[in-house]
């Protein structure tokens, strides 16, 4: 049987998704359900003086209205930060309480204060309009740059500062800078993004009054973790009385990692009102209350020699946490960001200093790439600036500073097990026809257009591990993953994984690897995920961890199956277990050439005994059945890397940036399914390009989100993007048996700096902030024209 790992197996998911047969949370309806509408703060910052629900309670169809007072009375806990980060001075980070319904104060537009349950959605909406909330409006802190000098939003959190974190050695950096020929300085932003999963958040809660069990269907990237938090911190119900199911989920990009207010409130309330509850976010609610991404202000400095060698690097960043610290909110701008800020380079000395601050805006958390896009943007922009100032070709300066030996100990944290950055960049250079750029630039110029080329080399650290290190860094949980593999008596296989697919195609990829391990046709393998009642506890999907952590747990569980199978087969084949080989789904004894298929062995394992034609004696001491589970905790992160090159053409009359060519060469180690991986790269690129050219979440001074709809928040569209020219190199990961590295976030990480480097290259090095909108580019073109005229 040919190996399925490496082949373009069509997605098992396609039939259901492409024919509209997916089953999403909002497709679920429970008899007698009520509809929830949340009443949200219209103010960015205010004290709640009084909530009057009396009129609304009398409104038609209303079942109940609950507020923060009820939450407090029932001692329901709030939302939490998942990582405890310490400041440079050793002090603990400062986090405000974040009750599921605000009782005393609201801290961003959309912060929920009350909830209406009614017989119909329209009745719930009508009643919600009658709830009177009396606010004392306070001055909002909405500007990130000014947050530390503004009034404290939360009691006891001075300067709105959660922590002031340092990674690296300031003294060493100072010494390196003292030796430098030149210091390159750069002030940049990393624009705030709204994840915009296609499916809005939703939950459907079913409380069973007899068993006292709550079932929560929800749009989550990690149902097990949601259950844990809801139980251990929310106090909604013990874990055994709480089932969390995340069925088909239409995209998450990090925004569905968190457990949200609505899930806690509805789960708790369903028990209180003894009725099922359905809540589905409207798109405006998604804009306002899904966790946002990025939002940094950075000052960076790179110390270089005249011939382009890097000596040291400083990264001073202010990161926006929004109003509250959520699950990955505090780690995203620290351990996911800081270490990667030195990029793919040998950097003798470096530090990252991050001040994370609270503002009266939606909470900011992990968004595809989480920290690594911000880091890569910083280093790749400053490396380009260095190349420009030193008059060195952007590819040459990168090559000069690449490590060539692996494992490579990166400056700040990571021990990178494998990679070949030179090969990746060379391949990208060739595929992009880098040398032909000058001619294409001339051609553009003859049409009155500007042309720029941008290069980025990146590495990223994903599949966060191992758990002991993760916990030492401040994580509240370990980041292993679990799997269980079950043979049915008649030979089909069900694979349970603790990770969750919301677009990643686990049902296909995981079935491919199980098919290879077990020698069972892929059609006979089903992958089950997303239900705390099915399979083992798991940590979910984010940070490109599913295959490198969860997939390996499946491999290991399969190996256990084969081991047990060998013992059973040995007995059946009258040999000793070490005489049995397993290959292509068959247990073979070489000397007698007798064999049993794994299906026959599975059958035997369930029917231990000898009767008529059934002859399946279990070996002594073996339990019946063929079910094994495994928890995998890798020895390290995985470190995908690559080089991307793009070209833009700019119309100086309008500032319009046309993305003309995009080449991406990535090293994801072993690729299980190229079709799926290419899809992941395409999607990632679209989002990274979106950040560079279009997307920008903006709040006004009073803390109103002024980009709260698709009329104002620009998403990248298919016709904005060129055909992507994809290539791969391969150095296998040494930290897992498949040699795989994460691929989910790479496109997002590399695309933003690649596009911006190209735009700025076209503008002769003129800096512009993210995103490069037409007006900004047009202004830069005008200034360029002026200074060119002066020079002439």
């Amino acid at each position, binding site marked *: 049987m040919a190996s399925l790992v490496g082949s373009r197996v069509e997605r098992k998911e396609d039939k259901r998704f492409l024919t509209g047969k997916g089953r999403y949370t909002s497709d679920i309806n429970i008899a007698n359900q009520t509809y929830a509408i949340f009443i949200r703060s219209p103010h960015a910052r205010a004290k709640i003086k009084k909530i009057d629900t009396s009129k609304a309670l009398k409104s038609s169809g209303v079942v109940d209205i609950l507020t923060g007072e009820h939450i407090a009375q029932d001692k329901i806990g709030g939302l939490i930060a998942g990582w405890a980060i310490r400041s440079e001075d050793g002090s603990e980070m400062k986090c405000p309480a974040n009750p599921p319904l605000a009782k005393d104060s609201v801290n961003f537009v959309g912060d929920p204060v009350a909830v209406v349950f009614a017989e119909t959605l329209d009745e719930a909406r009508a009643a919600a309009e009658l709830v009177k909330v009396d606010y004392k409006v306070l001055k909002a802190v909405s500007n990130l740059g000014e947050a530390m000098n503004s009034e404290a939003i939360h009691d006891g959190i001075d300067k709105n500062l959660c922590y002031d974190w340092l990674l690296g050695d300031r003294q060493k950096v100072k010494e390196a800078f003292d030796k430098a020929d030149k210091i390159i300085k750069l002030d940049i932003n990393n624009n705030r993004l709204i994840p915009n999963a296609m499916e809005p958040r939703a939950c459907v809660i079913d409380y069973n009054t007899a068993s006292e069990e709550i079932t929560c269907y929800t749009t989550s990237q990690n149902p097990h973790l949601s259950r844990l938090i809801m139980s251990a911190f929310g106090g909604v119900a013990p874990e055994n009385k709480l089932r969390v199911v995340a069925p088909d989920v239409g995209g998450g990009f990090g925004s569905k990692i968190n457990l949200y207010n609505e899930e806690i409130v509805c789960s708790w309330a369903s028990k209180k009102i003894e009725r099922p509850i359905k809540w589905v976010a409207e798109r405006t609610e998604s804009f306002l209350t899904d966790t946002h991404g990025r939002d940094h202000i950075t000052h960076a400095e790179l110390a270089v020699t005249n011939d382009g060698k890097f000596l040291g690097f400083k990264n001073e960043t202010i990161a926006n946490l929004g109003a509250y610290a959520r699950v990955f909110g505090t780690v995203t701008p620290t351990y996911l960001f800081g270490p990667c800020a030195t990029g793919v380079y040998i950097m003798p000395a470096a530090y990252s200093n991050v001040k994370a601050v609270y503002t009266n805006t939606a909470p900011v958390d992990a968004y595809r790439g989480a920290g690594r896009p911000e880091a890569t943007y910083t280093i790749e922009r400053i490396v380009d600036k260095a190349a420009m100032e030193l008059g060195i070709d952007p590819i040459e300066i990168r090559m000069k500073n690449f490590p060539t030996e692996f494992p490579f100990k990166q400056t700040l944290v990571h021990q990178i097990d494998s990679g070949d950055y030179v090969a990746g960049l060379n391949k990208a250079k060739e595929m992009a026809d880098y040398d032909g750029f000058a001619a294409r630039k001339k051609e553009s110029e003859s049409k009155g257009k500007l042309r720029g080329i941008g290069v980025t080399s990146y590495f990223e650290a994903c599949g966060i591990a191992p758990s002991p290190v993760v916990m030492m860094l401040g994580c509240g949980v370990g980041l292993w993953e679990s799997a269980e593999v079950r043979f049915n008596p008649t030979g089909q296989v069900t694979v349970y994984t603790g990770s969750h697919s919301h677009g990643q195609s686990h049902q296909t990829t995981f079935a491919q690897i199980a098919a290879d391990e077990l020698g069972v046709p892929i059609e006979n393998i089903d992958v089950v995920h997303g239900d705390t009642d099915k399979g083992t506890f798991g940590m979910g999907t984010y940070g490109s961890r599913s295959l490198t952590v969860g997939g390996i747990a499946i491999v290991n569980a399969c190996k256990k199956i084969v081991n047990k199978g060998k013992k059973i087969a040995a007995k059946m084949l009258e040999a000793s277990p070490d005489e049995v080989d397993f290959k292509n789904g068959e247990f073979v004894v070489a000397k007698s050439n007798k064999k049993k298929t794994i299906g026959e062995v599975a059958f035997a394992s369930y029917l231990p005994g000898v009767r008529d034609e059934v002859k399946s004696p279990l070996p002594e001491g073996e339990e019946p059945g063929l079910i094994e589970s495994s928890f995998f905790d890798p020895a390290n992160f995985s470190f995908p890397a690559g080089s991307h090159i793009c070209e833009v053409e700019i119309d100086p009359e309008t500032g319009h940036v046309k993305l003309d060519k995009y080449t991406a060469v990535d090293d994801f180690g072993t690729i299980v399914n190229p079709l799926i991986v290419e899809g992941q790269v395409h999607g990632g690129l679209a989002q990274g390009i979106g950040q560079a050219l279009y997307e920008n979440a903006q709040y006004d001074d009073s803390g109103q989100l002024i980009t709260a709809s698709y009329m104002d928040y620009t998403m990248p569209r298919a016709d904005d993007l060129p055909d992507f020219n994809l290539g791969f190199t391969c150095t296998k990961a040494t930290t897992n048996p498949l040699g795989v590295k994460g691929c989910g976030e790479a496109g997002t990480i590399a695309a933003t700096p690649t596009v911006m480097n190209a735009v700025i290259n076209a503008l002769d090095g003129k800096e512009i902030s993210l995103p490069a909108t*037409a007006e900004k580019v047009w202004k830069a073109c005008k200034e360029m024209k002026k200074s060119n005229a002066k020079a002439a």
Partner: protein
Amino acid sequence: MKTFNYHSAKDVKEASKLASSNSAFLAGGMTTIPSMKLGLASYKDIIDIKRIKKLSGIKVSGKTVTIGATTKHSEVASSKDVKKAIPSLAALAEGIGDPQVRNRGTIGGSIANNDPAADYPSACIALNATIHTNNRSIDAEKFFRGMFETCLKSTEVIESIEFSIPQKSSYQKLPNPASRYAIVGVYVAQHKTGINVGVTGAKSCVYNDKDLAGALTKNFSSSAIDSVKVSSSGMNSDIHASSDYRANMVKAFAKKAVDAC
């Protein structure tokens, strides 16, 4: 959405009779329905005019193209007659919103709504359109009054829009990257009787840029536009474009339009 009475009018007379200051006609619903859903508008009566056959269709005579009020954008975009008589008008319709919007939205709804960033109003100005209603015919220059404001009475139904066929014309638009409405849209049309430059998106209401038209009358070339000063005063300013940028884009897109004529 608040509850309302739904009526399906069988003819224009009935539609007009049912209308009041608290009603809306339902053509494509692409403006009315979202604003009702968002709670920005509410009406006592919604009067569906899509079943009135006479309101839909495209007719070309020697000098004019007449488009029924409920004719959809996609129908205008794909009409062979329009493409032949006024290709720029078909191209304009093709550039409105997205396929879903074009398959429902109508020309009558678009001009009745008079969104400052809508495309069709510029065509009405540039192509000397006459707006025929159930009781009068109105010149485009008089029809558009201000932001979301026209001279229509609440009981008045647009029946058709009659465009003069120009000698040459082009519509060039800088789309809002998010919504694809016009940040600036410039419709240049040369008629025997003179030149019009309909500008949308730039100000609170569509207008005929007389300075640009004047310069083009003297010399119909994009270089003639260079010397015209377009002031940013009175131009819209928002997160997508400042008034200064808009003023400059009026020139840039006027030039593109002239070059494409």
